[in-house]
């Protein structure tokens, strides 16, 4: 119950913040906000011991019960890690933001968004029900959208926001489809229930589709290739947001999803290929791209992409354990997952710190451009220290936590190389090499951060503001994170035992009993291949860093120059232009075209299906006789009708129309329909009078200027339409299947007291039709009045006539 509440608390706070904000202008509103994450952090932290002991907590509120959508919260090891990250980093970021954002900004809005995000993110990690998870999932996208465009008057902010929204929401929709497929297979929206029963459904054809769709969601959110392009542009958000959402938490929602679904999909090879393949590729691509950035924040964005790729690939590798099934041998593969979880935590610490540092630089100097920076070490010693710790941890150097997880990463890769799926075609080696190269570049850009920003010469004229060390307040949060970076290096097993182990159990429920599920983390484990790889990284990385100017040119070579962003932008432009082109192609605004569409559709659909189904069996045996005079009348009508097409004067056409109308009246007489004959005659006359009334004001017909081709085309359509109507009519007459209900009405005198059957139908049996028909007539009458009398006066303000 309280866990459920913890999701709602941020939302409640988000409602109250604007109210408080309106009252208290003097104090920084952030001080009120920060209470929320701290309280939640403490609250969640209080569960660490019991979770570590293997307990889980579940609570359900009924929502859409009939469909199986319940508001179920589920706290286990995996969600706890994320919960702590969300609230912990959240507290620090808010603390940081209090100093970072001036009170002139619309802070109320800012914190509302932030709280919204926090609640949503907690919802994602704590929800057991797929649909509820999806609710919060999209909410994180939305709050991210709002935060990226916090300074919405900037074009770039809007662009970044739009991009992230489009990509992540699209992924979300795909994921939703995947979820629904899962539910269709298993009959449940509950992750726990699906995990429990998934074994029966892995052979369903939908299973793989569901997996891929869910992965699409995860990849878009976690900025995996090729969806990573939104993340660098998301850096338009205020730095606290970047630190929080776009590095520590939201982008890890995809990771969370992969972890959460590992027990469901992990048994499939496709999963392994997809997750680790995309992960490694993203890792490599991100690190390569990071090196070439000149904006520190962009550099960090690519670094984040790269690191997320790393974690992703580890989760993929870890799934091997599930494919192998539980055995003492297969447990070794779970190490990758362990490493992934560990790096996840580590990344949050060092990357959070780095973002804050860059934020400080930006805040103090007004620029983040490496080319304009240098020599800050002397002026900003504390900042420098934090940057150093963060960067070296990222580079995988001791004595920082990054070293530990990086080593485990290499080990996992080395383990995986022996896998059956990999050995056959040396993909394993390829992956290993790729990962190693990526690590080299990671080293390079980490060095760039430290050395190009803090070493060398400082040029005041290149920056916007006079240089000063940041305020103490702004340094508190990054300092805490930097401390953690070191503390974790020295006490990794605290994290391992209390946080990672329960999470491992959550991911590998079948391996729960395995002793080696959570290895003992050691900083020193001899000169094993992993260490050699690290040494290699350092050596090659140093060389590359030193001689960067000599090889930077490779970024102009084709595959590296290719830019998905341009492709994305071009795609959108192409989409808009293409849409415009396509739509204009058929939406021409000419009535004639639209009518042609309708008739062509009619001819094809109805005519075609008559031909196709062979519904053209006629039966003329029931036809009544034709008298000569009747034939003459019909002939005259045909003549009058055809003449209407060719006559040159509209008045003649009206007269011919009148002839048609009167002739029909005559036919009604022949067909024994006195009431119809009467009505038809009068209506025809009144219609003709109306035509004449309006003609006074209308111009005489001009000659149709359409060409011969058009005329022939129109003619073909007209004739085809006529034929279809006739053929269908004849077919129906030959196939009357039932006696009409109208025999009943012949009893009209007894039933309704009228001898005129038609009139009785109109006035009694179907009086409702008549009533409405009168209403129709009435509307037309009043409508004509309105149409003519109501004339807008503000004609010049007609915007559409521009």
């Amino acid at each position, binding site marked *: 119950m309280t866990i459920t509440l913890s999701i709602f608390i941020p939302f409640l706070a988000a409602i109250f913040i604007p109210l408080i904000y309106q009252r208290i202008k003097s104090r920084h509103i952030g001080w009120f906000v920060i209470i929320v994450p701290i309280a939640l952090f403490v609250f969640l932290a209080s569960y660490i011991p019991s979770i570590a002991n293997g307990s889980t907590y579940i609570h359900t509120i009924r929502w859409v019960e009939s469909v199986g959508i319940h508001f179920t919260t589920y706290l286990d090891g995996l969600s706890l890690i994320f919960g702590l990250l969300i609230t912990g980093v959240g507290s620090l970021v808010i603390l940081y933001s209090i100093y970072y954002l001036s009170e002139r900004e619309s802070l109320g809005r800012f914190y509302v968004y932030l709280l919204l995000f926090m609640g949503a993110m907690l919802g994602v990690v704590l929800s057991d029900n797929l649909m509820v998870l999806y609710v919060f999932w999209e909410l994180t996208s939305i709050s991210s959208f709002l935060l990226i465009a916090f300074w919405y008057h900037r074009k770039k902010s809007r662009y970044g926001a739009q991009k992230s929204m489009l990509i992540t929401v699209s992924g979300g929709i795909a994921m939703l489809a995947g979820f629904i497929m899962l539910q269709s297979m298993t009959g449940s929206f509950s992750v726990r229930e699906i995990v429990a029963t998934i074994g029966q459904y892995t052979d369903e054809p939908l299973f793989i589709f569901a997996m891929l769709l869910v992965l699409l969601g995860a990849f878009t959110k976690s900025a995996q290739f090729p969806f990573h392009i939104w993340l660098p542009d998301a850096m338009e958000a205020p730095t606290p947001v970047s630190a929080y959402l776009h590095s520590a938490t939201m982008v890890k929602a995809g990771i969370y999803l992969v972890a959460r679904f590992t027990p469901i999909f992990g048994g499939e090879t496709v999963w392994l290929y997809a997750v680790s393949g995309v992960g490694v590729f993203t890792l490599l691509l991100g690190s390569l791209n990071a090196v070439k950035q000149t904006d520190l924040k962009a550099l960090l964005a690519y670094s984040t992409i790269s690191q997320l790729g790393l974690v992703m690939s580890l989760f993929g590798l870890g799934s091997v354990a599930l494919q192998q099934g539980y055995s003492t041998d297969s447990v070794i593969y779970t190490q990758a997952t362990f490493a992934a979880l560990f790096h996840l935590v580590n990344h949050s610490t060092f990357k959070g710190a780095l973002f804050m540092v860059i934020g400080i630089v930006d805040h103090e100097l007004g620029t983040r451009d490496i080319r304009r920076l240098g020599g800050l070490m002397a002026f900003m010693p504390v900042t420098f220290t934090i940057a150093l710790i963060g960067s070296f941890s990222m580079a995988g150097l001791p004595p920082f936590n990054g070293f530990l997880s990086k080593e485990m990463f290499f080990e996992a890769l080395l383990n995986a190389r022996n896998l059956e799926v990999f050995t056959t075609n040396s993909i394993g080696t390829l992956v290993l090499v790729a990962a190693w190269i990526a690590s080299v570049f990671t080293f390079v850009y980490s060095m760039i951060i430290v050395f190009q920003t803090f070493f060398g010469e400082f040029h005041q004229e290149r920056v916007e503001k006079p240089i000063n060390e940041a305020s103490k307040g702004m340094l508190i949060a990054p300092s805490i994170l930097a401390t953690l970076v070191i503390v974790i290096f020295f006490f990794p097993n605290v994290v391992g035992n209390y946080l990672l182990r329960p999470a491992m159990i959550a991911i590998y429920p079948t391996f729960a009993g395995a002793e080696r599920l959570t290895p003992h983390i050691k900083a020193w484990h001899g000169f094993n291949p992993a260490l050699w790889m690290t040494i290699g990284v350092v050596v090659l990385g140093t060389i590359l860093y030193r001689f960067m100017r000599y090889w930077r040119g490779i970024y102009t070579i084709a595959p590296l120059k290719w830019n998905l962003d341009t492709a994305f932008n071009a795609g959108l432009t192409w989409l808009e232009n293409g849409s415009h082109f396509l739509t204009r192609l058929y939406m021409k605004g000419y*009535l004639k075209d639209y009518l042609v569409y309708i008739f062509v559709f009619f001819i094809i659909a109805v005519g075609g299906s008559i031909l196709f189904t062979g519904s053209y069996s006629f039966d003329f045996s029931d036809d009544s006789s034709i008298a000569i005079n*009747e034939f003459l009348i019909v002939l005259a009508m045909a003549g009058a009708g055809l003449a209407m*097409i060719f006559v040159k004067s509209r008045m003649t056409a009206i007269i011919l129309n009148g002839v048609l109308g009167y002739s029909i009246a005559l036919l009604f007489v022949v067909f024994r*329909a006195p009431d119809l004959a009467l009505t038809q005659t009068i209506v025809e006359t009144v219609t003709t009078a109306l035509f004449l009334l309006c003609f006074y004001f209308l111009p005489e017909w001009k000659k149709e200027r359409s060409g011969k081709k058009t005329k022939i085309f129109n003619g073909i359509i007209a004739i085809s339409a*006529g034929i279809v109507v006739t053929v269908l009519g004849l077919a129906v007459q030959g196939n009357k299947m039932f006696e009409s209900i*109208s025999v009943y009405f*012949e009893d009209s005198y007894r039933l309704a007291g009228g001898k005129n059957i038609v009139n009785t139908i109109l006035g009694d049996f179907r009086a409702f039709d008549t009533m409405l028909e009168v209403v129709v*007539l009435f509307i*037309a009458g009043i409508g004509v009045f309105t149409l003519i009398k109501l004339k807008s006066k503000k004609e010049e303000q007609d915007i559409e006539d521009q």
Partner: protein
Amino acid sequence: METLITVLVGLLVTVAVYLLLSRNLIRVILGSAVLSHAAHLLLMTMGSGLKKGSAPLLGENAASYVDALPQALILTAIVISFAVTAFLLVLAYRTYKKTGTDDLYALRGFDDE
């Protein structure tokens, strides 16, 4: 008779469609008028047979009566199509007064951005 009338209906439909596809507003309206003539005739042929029985008036004591229901339906339809034609005609008139043209090619409206 039914066949003859049905063929006539087809012919009227052809005429009407051809008129509807014209670029002159009045032709279009005339087309819609002819179209409704065709529909009414068609509806007539869909009863339980033309000329089979006498007019549906009980006073005249006939052996059988023609199908009265289509007649009632046509009556309603005639009135409705009258209402619509009247409105359409006035609309054409108003449009001409406002725009100075009855050429539908000149009356594209929104799509002529």
